[in-house]
């Protein structure tokens, strides 16, 4: 069973805007974290020190109430003889350096360094929005998903409903917070702060249809260049969330970056969920009747 919730563009009528989104091309991310900083500055997202994690250069850990952009750092050790070029002597030297643990973290030294800026996906089928009991979460005229902080009462239902772990409760505040895709800036024809700050154009903002075309051209170029691990994540509409407003070009499996390989909107199973709850309620009624009316004493 699928309950279609047509909140965009239908309910906006003439005010509906083209669906806007992010294409995050992680193949050109340099891990500068300008997106994290710009987002915090513009949106007044409070500081939350998480300490030194030891997880490469990532000390902001994950997306959450106080982190609406998060740059992931993955260091992958490759076999010493896996890199192209170089003589047998050079490959042997590299192998020895790796074995001795003295190599530097640079391209070709046996380490592949993946960096990716993660963000709210602004799903087409957004579980957070569907389970929100107050209507605080809503879909904007740009097709994005935003929390109205003057309505949210901190029930926390959206937190475990999100298949990406994007939303979280801000402890001293009690409400949930997440990326708004800079709703205020969009209404003034400005691009979101993270995209504007990104120095390599790894974060690209625009109309979703145009971004998807651009992403496929980029994927084709990377594949032609021999990057056979390159892939688009959430660029299509045939997945468990019916497409996303923010999608990614990745250089490895999604789970390597902390992303679920097959995210599904829980509300897709709402039919079986309510059917089971209803059947169990009837069974309880039958049990009560049997216990009270069925016996002798």
């Amino acid at each position, binding site marked *: 069973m699928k*309950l279609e919730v047509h909140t965009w563009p239908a309910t906006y009528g003439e005010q509906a805007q083209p669906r806007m989104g992010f294409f995050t091309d992680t193949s050109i991310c340099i891990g500068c974290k300008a997106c994290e900083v710009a987002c915090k500055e513009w949106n007044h997202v409070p500081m939350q020190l998480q300490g030194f*994690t030891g997880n490469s250069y990532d000390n902001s850990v*994950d997306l*959450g109430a106080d982190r609406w952009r998060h740059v992931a750092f*993955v260091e992958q050790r490759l076999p010493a003889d896996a890199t192209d070029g170089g003589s047998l002597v050079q490959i042997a030297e590299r192998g020895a350096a790796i074995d001795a643990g003295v190599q530097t973290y640079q391209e070709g030294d046996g380490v592949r360094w993946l960096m990716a800026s993660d963000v709210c996906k602004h799903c087409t089928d957004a579980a957070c929005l569907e*389970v929100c*009991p*107050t*209507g605080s979460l809503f879909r904007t005229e740009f097709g994005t998903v935003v929390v109205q902080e003057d309505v949210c*009462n901190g*029930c926390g*239902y959206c937190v*475990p*409903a*999100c298949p990406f*772990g994007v*939303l*979280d409760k801000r402890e001293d505040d009690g*409400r949930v917070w997440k990326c708004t895709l800079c709703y205020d800036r969009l209404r003034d024809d400005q691009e979101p702060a993270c995209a504007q700050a990104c120095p390599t154009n790894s974060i690209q903002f625009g109309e979703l*249809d145009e971004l998807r075309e651009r992403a*496929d051209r980029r994927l084709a170029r990377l*594949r032609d260049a021999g990057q056979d691990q390159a*892939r*688009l*994540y*959430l660029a*299509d*509409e*045939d*997945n*468990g969330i019916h497409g996303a407003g923010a999608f990614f070009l990745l250089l*490895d499996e999604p*789970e*390597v*970056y*902390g*992303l*679920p390989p*097959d*995210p599904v909107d*829980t509300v897709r199973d*709402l039919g*079986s*969920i*309510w059917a*089971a*709850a209803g*059947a*169990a*309620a*009837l*069974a*309880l*009624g039958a*049990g*009560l009747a049997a*216990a*009270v*009316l069925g*016996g002798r004493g």
Partner: protein
Amino acid sequence: MTAGASYHGQPVIKAPVWTWQIPWYFFTGGVAGASAGLGYLCELRGDDALARRAWAAAMAGICVSPALLIADLGRPQRFLNMLRMFKVTSPMSVGTWILQGSAASTAIAAAHAWFGLFPRLARVAAPAAALLGLPLSTYTAALVTNTAVPVWHEARRTLPFVFGAGAGLSAGAAALIGADPATAAPARRLALGGAAMELATTTLMHRGLGEHGRPYSQGRCKHFDQAASGFLAVGSALLAARGSRSRTAAAAGGVLLLAGAVSTRWSVFAAGRQSAADPHAVIDPQRAGIARGERIGGARTEPVARDAAAPAGPAS
């Protein structure tokens, strides 16, 4: 356990932020819901003494429940925002309205059973409370299974029956405590039948979960689950052996069964936290679905030549 890739072992989804009030509400909501049914049916049967006990339990449950729920909110003073809408896709929204209806009708029915107040209103309110009590006892399962937490979501067909059985046994057990064993046979049957059903449906749920059910054999969840089985088994044995003769044995058995129902709810709650904290509980089954060819997943390696007219999708 497969040790596939994850991001520095970080969880993929967020653990529920709900605190201790929520598993207790699973319990008090079930007590309130099933006790209303028990009270109404006992009235129909002419068993007014047992009916009064059941309505008292229903009233206690329905008073505590909203307090627990409001206390768990991040902004308790905004609890009325729940009443801005009715939303079928949000079991929490549906449950809010069920709880409202249950509270109003139970209050009237209990006032009639105890003090003879509102006789005409109670003729409608008592059956309404009994009927609303049934979904009140099971919607909480719909609430937690309608999330991305694997151990909850994958139990969506069985967990409501665990909660329904637990509500029944709780109502029976609550009515037994302090009651005269000679007149409490329906409550005893309900408690014993409910306890057997809770043990059976919990086992079914664990089996059905398969690899998703790993939390039930680990950590706090496992301890709550074992405690629940122990409480239910000992309480049932005591009730079956001595419950029809000894007031003390019936009360002790009732308390043990209530402890069992509470422990089951805590094990379900703890399972959700443990499941959400484990990246492989989320990643591995998704990856397995893709490997089996049942799911296409979220990623695509082959580029698609798109133009404005072509629909988005993978190349054939």
